[in-house]
């Protein structure tokens, strides 16, 4: 696919939407009071990052970088494999962090009987 004169618009809209996802996630983290929603916000931001990874690896007309029998020896364009490998790692790590975050939310809820972050500040100053 060649975007020709629309290159800039495509660039901004593709990266922009991934970045928008990140910002929406961060917005949730900064504004939502509910701990669960904050964790969801973090996951959203993560998702945006993952999208961004995939986007930077994309190459016009590229396919999956797997030399299966049907493509061996043919002249195919493949996308950059590195971001794809990185994003896998990032996803797994994101999952791990989310799991820990949720477990902490559970503990907090148990301890404070609330899931509102602005009410959980016995540690301050």
């Amino acid at each position: 696919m060649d975007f020709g004169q629309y290159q800039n618009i495509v660039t901004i809209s593709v990266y922009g939407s991934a970045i928008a996802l990140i910002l929406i996630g961060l917005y949730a983290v900064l504004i939502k009071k509910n701990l669960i929603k904050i964790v969801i916000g973090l996951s959203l931001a993560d998702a945006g990052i993952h999208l961004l990874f995939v986007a930077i690896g994309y190459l016009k007309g590229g396919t999956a970088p797997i030399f299966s029998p049907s493509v061996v020896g043919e002249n195919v364009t493949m996308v950059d494999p590195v971001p794809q490998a990185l994003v896998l790692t990032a996803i797994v790590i994101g999952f791990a962090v989310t799991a820990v975050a949720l477990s902490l939310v559970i503990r907090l809820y148990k301890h404070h009987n609330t899931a509102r972050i602005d009410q959980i500040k016995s540690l301050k100053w």
Partner: protein
Amino acid sequence: MELNYLYITVLVILSIAFIIGMLRFIKGPTASDRVVALDTISIIATASLVFMGYIFNRYIYLDVALIYGVLGFIGVIIIARYLEGAL
């Protein structure tokens, strides 16, 4: 070359289906409605993946579709169980 028309036709239809499914997802009105929409969308996506595999002539897309199908199914089940209040 005549296959191009097929590609475009099928992809257009699937896209419309996808969009209509999304509309229901957005509209709701209840959580259950949204999950129903999600279920439908995931089936459409699975089928689309298979067709994309055909277009790009990459057999490996079938695996992707299969995995996607399984995860979509179990995902829907989990949400359903959650709505039921079982989790």
